[in-house]
């Protein structure tokens, strides 16, 4: 494995049919690790384990992608690449079959209030619960904790104001089930630029002011 991996990758990119043995071994290793892990594995970790640079891991993931995600792929599994990690998951279209096979009847639905809270957090992260409460005009404590329980949001430290409220942000689980690979890909929502900054007052401090 002394050769530059980038050469191996570029050769593959040029000719899709030829996969060098070293690369093939890396692809197999990657799949095995991601399968056993289930959760997203960071490029950093993969780099340490596979003995290639993090940039090479990214190229490796790129290289593996078509096999999983292309339209004529023969797999029911897809490969997700996030900003600094990647993960294997089942393709969404097989969810009904999987549920039937596993005898899962219901679940997996998000209520309108959950989606509202999630949207507010996703666009303003990291933000506090009181900010969510303020935007929605109702107490959202229960929804916030249920989203955290579902793993769609997570704590992102605390805001440095009296009471040190918890800051929330979205997780990779959120990215996965909403079909995006980074929060940069969130759809744009009509902005009320002129006034929106003023809405954040007192304890509900927006991220814009923090960063």
């Amino acid at each position, binding site marked *: 494995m002394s050769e530059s991996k980038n050469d191996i990758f570029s050769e593959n990119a040029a000719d899709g049919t030829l996969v060098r043995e070293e690369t093939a071994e890396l692809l197999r290793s990657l799949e095995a690790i991601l399968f056993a892990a289930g959760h997203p594995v960071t490029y950093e970790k993969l780099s340490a384990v596979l003995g290639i640079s993090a940039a090479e891991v990214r190229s490796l993931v790129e290289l593996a992608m078509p096999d999983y995600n292309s339209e004529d792929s023969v797999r029911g599994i897809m490969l997700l690449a996030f900003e600094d990690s990647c993960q294997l998951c*089942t393709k969404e279209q097989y969810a009904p079959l999987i549920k039937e096979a596993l005898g899962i009847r219901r679940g997996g639905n998000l209520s309108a209030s959950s989606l509202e809270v999630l*949207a507010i957090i*996703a666009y303003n992260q990291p933000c506090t619960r009181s900010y969510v409460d303020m935007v929605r*005009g109702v107490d959202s404590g229960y929804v916030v904790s249920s989203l955290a329980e579902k793993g769609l949001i997570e704590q992102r430290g605390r805001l440095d104001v009296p009471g040190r409220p918890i800051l929330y942000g979205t997780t990779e689980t959120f990215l996965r089930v909403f*079909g995006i690979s980074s929060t940069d890909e969130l759809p744009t*929502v009509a902005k009320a630029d002129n006034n929106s900054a003023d809405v954040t007052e007192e304890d509900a401090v927006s991220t814009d002011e923090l960063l």
Partner: protein
Amino acid sequence: MEQITYRLDQFEGPLDLLLSLIQKNKFDIADIPIAIICDQYMEYINEAAARDLDVSSDFIVMASRLMLIKSRTLLPRDEETEEDPREELARAVIEYARAKEAAGLFAGMYSMHGGRMVKDTDEIPPDNTLREHSASLLAAALSRVLSEVRATEQSVTRFTPLIKKRSVSAAEKARSVMTYMKGRGAVTAEELFFREETKTDMIAVFLAILELLRSQRIIIVSGDDNDEGTLAAESLSFELSDENGENIDDVRIEE
């Protein structure tokens, strides 16, 4: 529990109700005819209350806020220094409208991709193979600890204890060791020794560890599999074994 707002139709909260009233009337959010909106809002709330429903306090708060704004708009104000009393409300409604719009987009995204499932991380059982380890490792760990203790022990015993010889039970130590190890994963020998204060206690722990190893209640796990042969005394560590590690009560050691 989540506040009951669904009874007030499908509204998520007072802002949602307000937004829908504004949209129904095709009002401009920046120029809300506050008197009309206030009346319609009150009508809505009263109807909900009349149907013997609990109107959540958030709706009542908004009602009073609308009343306040309505009354403030009736008063003359200095256009230059004072804000339009409706402005803060308008901002809140706009902000909420954005959140609601985003939630709508999210619903579509989720219904499209929500079926992506992942599996839990595979649980790989710990390697319980018993490997050869030199007994001298344990002795070395103990002597290292003891030598450090000797230095501090003199200062501790400033007065003569009333009871000269305290008997320490190895069985008791074995139980204490196991209780300590529960849920902690790998624990080093030194960690176990340093929990004790006197030399006698440490020796009892030493005996307890030997006994627990013999009865396979705990197993040796070396920190790094690669230097098995040259395992340093500091990295000698133990784990509760799978089969016998759980039950602390039936630990018996012949004294």
